[in-house]
C-alpha cells in the first residue's frame, strides 16, 4: 500500500468544532498545524449541518457569575456537570463569552435581531443559559478561519491509530485515505483528539437503517479507541445516553421545538407548560427522555409534540431555529408530506441507546499520555464545551510542541509496517464479513447483553461474546475499496469501545440512570462524586474510581 508522510507540530484528529478551534489557536501561537478529517470539515461531524444552542455565561445578561453558577445546576447537563471537577466547569463557563464574541466577529451570528437571545433547555422561572445562535454555517466559517490562519486541512483521511515513542510520548499517528488505497503517516510533536462521540453501538430505531441516528456513523468512537490503545484513561463508558425526538426520523434538536408534549387524550405529559412557549419549550423531554417509551409500553402512548395554538410568529421562530439546528432534511420532509406544522402534533419517541463517557482530560486538554490532548465530544458534550476546550487544547498542545523534542516517526517503522499489512489483509480478502454484517453483530450483542437490562451473568457472558466477535472481525473483515476499509476500521474501534463498556458496566455494581443493574438495584450515594475509569495496564483493562474535585 502506497504511503505518504506528513509532518507538523500539532496534529488535530477530527475537524469538528473542537478540532478546528484547536487548530486556529495553535496556529495563532505559531505552531505548524494539520487537521486530519475523515469527511470534509465543511460539513462533517455532529455539528455539520448546524446548531442553534450555545450554552454560555454572558455577564450583561446573567449578571453575577456566582448566581449563574448556582442556577447552572438546574438546567440541561446538570447531572453531568456534577461529575466534572469544579476547576473544569468554571474554566468552561468563564471562557464561553470570549468564544461568543470571537464567533460573532468571524461570521457566525451569535445575536438574534440585534440581541443575545436565550431560549430552550431551561425550566420556566429559572435562569436560561442556552444562547440561540445561527450556527447553520458554523463549519464553513470555522474551516475558512483555520485556512486563513494557515492550518493545513487534510480531508477524507481517517486516522485510526496513534504512534508513540519508546518513552511513551506521542510522536504521530497513522491514517488511511477514504478515497484511494493510501496510508498517511503523520509525524507530530503533539496530537489532539477531537473525533466526536460514539455512535452506532446499539441498533437504530429503524431496522436496517444504520444511519437513522442523531449522529452519523462516521462518529464511531475512534478517539476513545485510539486513546485507550495508547494507554490513556477512559471514563464513565457504561453510563448510556438516550435522546428523544420526532418518531422514525431521528434528529437532535429536542429543545428547539415549541410545543407541548401531550398524550393521546390531549393531556400534557409534564408539569411545565400547557401551551406552546418559545422561551422554554417543554422540559419534560429533558427530565425524562424515556417517557415516550414508558407511555408506549404501558399502553398510554403515543405522546405528541403538539404545536396547536402557536402564533404565526412563534412558528416562524421555531422553523428558523430548526433550520439552524441542522433539521433542513426534516423540514423539507414535513413540507412534502403537506403537514401543517402549526395545527399538527408530531409523535415523539425515545431514540436508541448510545454509549456515553469519553477520554479523561483536564481543562488544558491534557490526557494521561505525554503529548496527547483531547477535546470536544471525545471528552464531554455540547457545542460550547467543544469550542472552549478545543481552543484550550490547541493552546496547550502548541505550547507543548514548542518544548518537545523533535519527533522521529521512523523509530516506529516496524509498527507502521505491521499496520500496513493489516490493512492490506482486509483489502485483499475475498471471502469474509462486510462491515454491515459485523456492525449488526456488535449491535445485537450490545443490546442483548449490555442494554437496558444488565447483570453480572449477562455482562460476563456478553464480554466473552464480544471478544469472540472481535477475533472474528480481525480475521474476517473485508473491504472492496478505501471507503469500505474506513468502515471496517471504524467498526474495529467500536468493538474495542464496546468491550470496554462491558468491562466498565460489570465493575459498576449499582444502578445509575440508564445503567440498570438488576442485581444491584440501588444507586450508591458513595459513588455520586466518583468517576469510573478504565485504562490499559500491561495489555489488560484495569478499572479505577477517582474522586471528583469540587
Amino acid at each position, binding site marked *: 500500500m502506497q504511503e505518504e508522510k506528513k509532518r507538523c507540530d500539532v496534529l488535530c484528529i477530527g475537524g469538528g468544532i473542537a478540532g478546528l478551534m484547536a487548530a486556529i489557536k495553535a496556529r495563532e501561537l505559531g505552531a505548524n498545524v494539520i487537521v486530519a478529517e475523515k*469527511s470534509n470539515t465543511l460539513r462533517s*461531524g455532529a455539528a455539520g*449541518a448546524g446548531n442553534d444552542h450555545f450554552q454560555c455565561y454572558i455577564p450583561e445578561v446573567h449578571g453575577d457569575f456566582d448566581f449563574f453558577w448556582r442556577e447552572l445546576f438546574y438546567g440541561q447537563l446538570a447531572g453531568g456537570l456534577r461529575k466534572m471537577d469544579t476547576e473544569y466547569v468554571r474554566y468552561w463557563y468563564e471562557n464561553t463569552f470570549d468564544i461568543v464574541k470571537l464567533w460573532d466577529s468571524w461570521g457566525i451570528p451569535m445575536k438574534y435581531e440585534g440581541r443575545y437571545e436565550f431560549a430552550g433547555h431551561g425550566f420556566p422561572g429559572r435562569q436560561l443559559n442556552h444562547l440561540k445562535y445561527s450556527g447553520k454555517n458554523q463549519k464553513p466559517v470555522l474551516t475558512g478561519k483555520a485556512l486563513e490562519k494557515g492550518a493545513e486541512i487534510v480531508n477524507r483521511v481517517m486516522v485510526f491509530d496513534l504512534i508513540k515513542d519508546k518513552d511513551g510520548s506521542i510522536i504521530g499517528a497513522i491514517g488511511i485515505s477514504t478515497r484511494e488505497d493510501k496510508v498517511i503517516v503523520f509525524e507530530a510533536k503533539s496530537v489532539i483528539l477531537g473525533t466526536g462521540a460514539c455512535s452506532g453501538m446499539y441498533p437504530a430505531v429503524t431496522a436496517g437503517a444504520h444511519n437513522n441516528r442523531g449522529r*452519523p456513523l462516521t462518529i464511531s468512537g475512534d478517539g476513545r479507541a485510539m486513546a485507550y490503545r495508547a494507554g490513556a484513561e477512559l471514563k464513565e463508558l457504561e453510563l448510556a445516553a438516550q435522546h428523544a425526538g420526532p418518531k422514525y426520523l431521528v434528529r437532535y434538536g429536542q429543545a428547539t421545538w415549541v410545543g407541548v408534549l401531550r398524550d393521546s387524550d390531549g393531556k400534557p405529559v409534564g408539569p411545565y407548560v400547557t401551551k406552546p412557549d418559545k422561551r422554554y419549550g417543554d422540559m419534560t423531554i429533558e427530565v425524562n427522555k424515556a417517557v415516550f417509551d414508558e407511555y408506549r409500553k404501558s399502553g398510554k402512548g403515543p405522546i405528541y409534540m403538539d404545536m396547536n395554538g402557536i402564533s404565526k410568529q412563534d412558528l416562524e421562530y421555531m422553523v428558523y431555529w430548526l433550520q439552524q439546528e441542522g433539521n*433542513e432534511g426534516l423540514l423539507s420532509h414535513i413540507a412534502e408530506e403537506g403537514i401543517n406544522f402549526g395545527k399538527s402534533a408530531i409523535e415523539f419517541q425515545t431514540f436508541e441507546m448510545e454509549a456515553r463517557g469519553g477520554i479523561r482530560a483536564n481543562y488544558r486538554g491534557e490526557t494521561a499520555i505525554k503529548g496527547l490532548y483531547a477535546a470536544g465530544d471525545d471528552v464531554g458534550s455540547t457545542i460550547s464545551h467543544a469550542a472552549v476546550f478545543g481552543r484550550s487544547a490547541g493552546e496547550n498542545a502548541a505550547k507543548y510542541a514548542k518544548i518537545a523534542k523533535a519527533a522521529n516517526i521512523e523509530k516506529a517503522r516496524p509498527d507502521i509496517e505491521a499496520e500496513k499489512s493489516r490493512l492490506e489483509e482486509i483489502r485483499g480478502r475475498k471471502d469474509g464479513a462486510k462491515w454491515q454484517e459485523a456492525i449488526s453483530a456488535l449491535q445485537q450483542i450490545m443490546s442483548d447483553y449490555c442494554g437496558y437490562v444488565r447483570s453480572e451473568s449477562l455482562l460476563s457472558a456478553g464480554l466473552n461474546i464480544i471478544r469472540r466477535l472481535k477475533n472474528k472481525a480481525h480475521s474476517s473483515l473485508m473491504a472492496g*475499496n478505501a471507503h469500505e476499509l474506513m468502515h471496517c476500521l471504524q467498526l474495529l474501534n467500536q468493538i474495542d469501545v464496546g468491550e470496554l463498556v462491558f468491562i466498565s458496566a460489570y465493575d459498576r455494581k449499582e444502578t445509575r440512570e440508564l445503567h440498570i443493574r438488576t442485581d444491584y438495584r440501588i444507586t450508591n450515594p458513595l459513588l455520586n462524586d466518583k468517576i469510573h475509569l478504565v485504562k490499559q495496564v500491561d495489555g489488560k483493562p484495569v478499572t479505577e474510581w477517582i474522586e471528583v474535585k469540587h
Partner: protein
Amino acid sequence: MPPIINRDICNGCGKCVEICPLDVFFGTEKGEIPVVTYPDECFHEGSCVMDCPKGAIKLRLPLPMMIIYK
C-alpha cells in the same frame, strides 16, 4: 433512495461530492454528474441540498423514516 439529482439542472461542479459527510457519492469522477454509490449510508441531514449551487438535489426519505403525526 436519497439523494436524487436532477440531471437537467446539475452542472457537475462536484460540491456535493466534496462535502457529503458520509461520502455517499464515493467514486464520482471529477466534472461528472454525481453517482449515488452508497444511498443506504445517507444521513439525511441535507448538506448536499443546502450547498448545491444549482438547487439540483432533493432528498427522498426511506419509507420507514416517514414522520408520524396527527
